[in-house]
């Protein structure tokens, strides 16, 4: 087949694709209605998630001369533009590309941090954090025998195993996270539960630009290794007025984003917006007042905040995109079951992804949609 014929076929195909409807997002971004305390008077600027992350990194690097940012493609600005203009501003020594190697990025990051410098390591897709797993656990199946251990076996245990002589607290790993509409198996995963089983790490997921900036700055400055998961679908889609100064949002604190007395609904990241919509629907259709909690920090999670809420409402639903089995919802459910046993009016429910790899065309069926969450609320209040 001559190249020109192939090209004309391709172009025809491209036209067809562009006119067909690629489903709209499964949620609507809900900007925060309240600001973290003390920031009301700060100047604000409309920013999307990508820009707020960029801001946070810029501030971190301005206030800390030792801070370096590295990963694949960060030099030109990054595939999601989060590091836009940072190499220009801080120079090639502080903002640089690494070779294509997640285990190397994680290991290198640990070493930078162990030497006392602040390391911001970018892993382009959370789906590719697994080669870094060891440096963040041991290779388990034969095909993956040569995977690295950096995050689980090294970063998480660095302080403990050295008797606190050494630590890599100055390491923050940033990585993209969650469904994006067309990402399929390897560009949509929410891998947090793989790390919640590893003591020693802190794990954070922001729901929007305001939280992302404050939480990322907290992670960078926290004296423990952190993984910061950035919901990629929110990079451009989520925009709101973000305080322009240097501020942090504390780690380990959940936020009640909608008050209610009838049922507690816990979520994080993108799913908070799904939860808010479901809560709104529940008000309209069931006259139920649902309390929505954004966990923000997944590890260590704000147990008491959730427990207090369930003591008030008597009902709990946890919802996350990650597959249901052994997802972090399981841990929350188990803890609340123990601490609120006598408060519960209905069984704790989890609305999550199915136990399948993340599909491509069937994404709308896989995801824990507004309607699946709504249905769980309905069943719970009617139990």
């Amino acid at each position, binding site marked *: 087949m001559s*190249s020109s014929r192939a090209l004309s076929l391709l*172009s025809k195909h491209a036209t067809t694709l562009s006119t067909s409807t690629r489903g709209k997002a499964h949620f609507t971004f809900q900007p925060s209605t309240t600001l973290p305390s003390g920031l009301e008077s700060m100047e604000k600027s409309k920013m999307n998630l990508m820009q707020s992350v960029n801001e946070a990194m810029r501030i971190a690097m301005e206030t800390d001369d030792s801070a370096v940012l590295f990963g694949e493609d960060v030099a030109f600005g990054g595939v999601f533009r989060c590091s836009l203009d940072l190499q220009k501003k801080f120079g090639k020594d502080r903002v640089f590309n690494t070779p294509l*190697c997640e285990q190397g990025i994680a290991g*290198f990051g640990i070493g930078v941090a162990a030497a006392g410098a602040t390391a911001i390591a970018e892993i382009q897709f959370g789906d590719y954090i697994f080669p870094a797993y060891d440096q963040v656990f*041991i290779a388990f199946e034969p095909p993956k025998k040569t995977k690295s251990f950096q995050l689980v*076996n090294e970063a998480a245990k660095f302080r403990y*195993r050295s008797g606190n002589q050494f630590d890599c607290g100055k390491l923050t790993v940033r990585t993209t996270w969650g469904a994006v509409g067309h990402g399929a198996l390897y560009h949509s995963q929410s891998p947090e539960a793989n790390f919640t089983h590893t003591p*020693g790490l802190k794990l954070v997921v922001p729901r929007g630009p305001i939280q992302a900036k404050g939480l990322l700055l907290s992670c960078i400055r926290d004296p*423990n290794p952190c993984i910061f998961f950035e919901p990629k679908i929110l990079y451009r889609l989520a925009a709101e007025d973000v305080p322009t100064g240097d501020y942090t949002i504390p780690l380990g604190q959940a936020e009640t984003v909608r008050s209610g007395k009838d049922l507690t609904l816990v979520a994080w990241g993108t799913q908070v917006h799904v939860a808010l919509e479901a809560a709104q629907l529940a008000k309209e259709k069931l006259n139920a007042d649902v309390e929505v909690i954004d966990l923000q920090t997944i590890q260590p999670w704000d147990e008491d905040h959730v427990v207090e809420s369930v003591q008030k409402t008597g009902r709990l639903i946890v919802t996350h995109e990650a597959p249901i089995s052994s997802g972090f919802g399981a841990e929350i459910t188990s803890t609340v079951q123990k601490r609120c046993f006598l408060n519960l009016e209905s069984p704790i429910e989890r609305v999550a992804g199915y136990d399948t790899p993340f599909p491509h065309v069937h994404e709308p069926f896989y995801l824990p949609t507004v309607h699946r969450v709504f249905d769980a609320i309905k069943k719970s209040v009617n139990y």
Partner: protein
Amino acid sequence: MHRALLHVSRRAVTARNLASTVEGDAFRLNEYSSKYLGHRKAAFTEKLEIINADDTPAIPIYRVTNAVGDVIDKTQDPNFDEPTAIKMYKTMTQLNIMDRILYDSQRQGRISFYMTSFGEEGNHVGSAAALEPQDLIYGQYREAGVLLWRGYSMENFMNQCYGNADDLGKGRQMPMHFGAKERNFVTISSPLTTQLPQAVGSAYAFKQQKDNNRICVVYFGDGAASEGDAHAAFNFAATLKAPIIFFCRNNGYAISTPTSEQYGGDGIAGKGPAYGLHTIRVDGNDLLAVYNATKEARRVALSNRPVLIEAMTYRLGHHSTSDDSTAYRSAEEVETWGDKDHPITRFNKYITERGWWNEEKEKEWQKEVKKRVLTEFSAAEKRKKAHYHDLFEDVYDELPLRLRRQRDELDAHIAEYKEHYPLEGLHEKH
């Protein structure tokens, strides 16, 4: 989008009609050279030749002395002064004796695990002596001689092996997982090779400091070099120009796997130039050669070019106390190596020839070291372990609420079931 594609394809068609291909060749060679091949001179060839990997010559093994211990080329003699040479010899022999005693103690059930360094005393001390105290060292697990040289005391060793409350590592890990912040020796971890990219990161951080005078040195074995982390580390070090020495102790075995089953190329040194690492292969049992090579490598590394040193040596002992190497190699092979090429024997000749050592001093020293080791050993054995509350510390910089609650649960449990727990060996209070 399709409009752009058509534009490019039209260009491709016209390129074929260009009158001069010479311009195209020159352009490409320059691009390949400057962007693809690290400024190495790119060239075309019309000869079909697949490089035969088996024919590539092995990198030669740098040495100063022969197997017996005679300096071959006097210009290569580092000319140690007496105190330095004696310290080197004493460190090697102290390690040897400590290894024997601690190995036996494991056999007697007194410590849980041990790994000896028999046959590798020379590569430990030769390399350690060529570094500066401020250089940060990452190890694998068979570098006790490096620690000894740096002043990690016999007491420290014993405390770590017993995991008692005085262990710098707070008894958290198995024996051999040493670490000493004051000695600039990062705590060992069991997963192999993970330390390599970490060392590159630390080296990079040092490079960023004004007037940096620190390098990183990372030790690893022939087996560890097979892990993906080694590839990652070599590549990062070269591209980011890290001030680091990669020191490979090629001792012929990775537990039972001989090097003939570990890699197909020219050892570990053969990989170096391919990554852009300045490289040297050295006689690991020749303390003088290891010293010279490391000293020069340090100078190069400090100029922000990484160096790979492959020290050829032989693991005379078993992999660890969990291994019996007679299952996979002959006693004869081990004996022959020990007879024909031992780092301690070779260096003994050097100091004896110079009149700094003799048989009598040897006897006295052996007695003295043995006594010292045994004294520290029994003292460490008696020391208590930390209170069990320590189990919950240092997971994070501060004890999180959830862990504190778990600790409280354990306290309540122990209060009721204390007779079932080994509390006698522990400090009573945290």
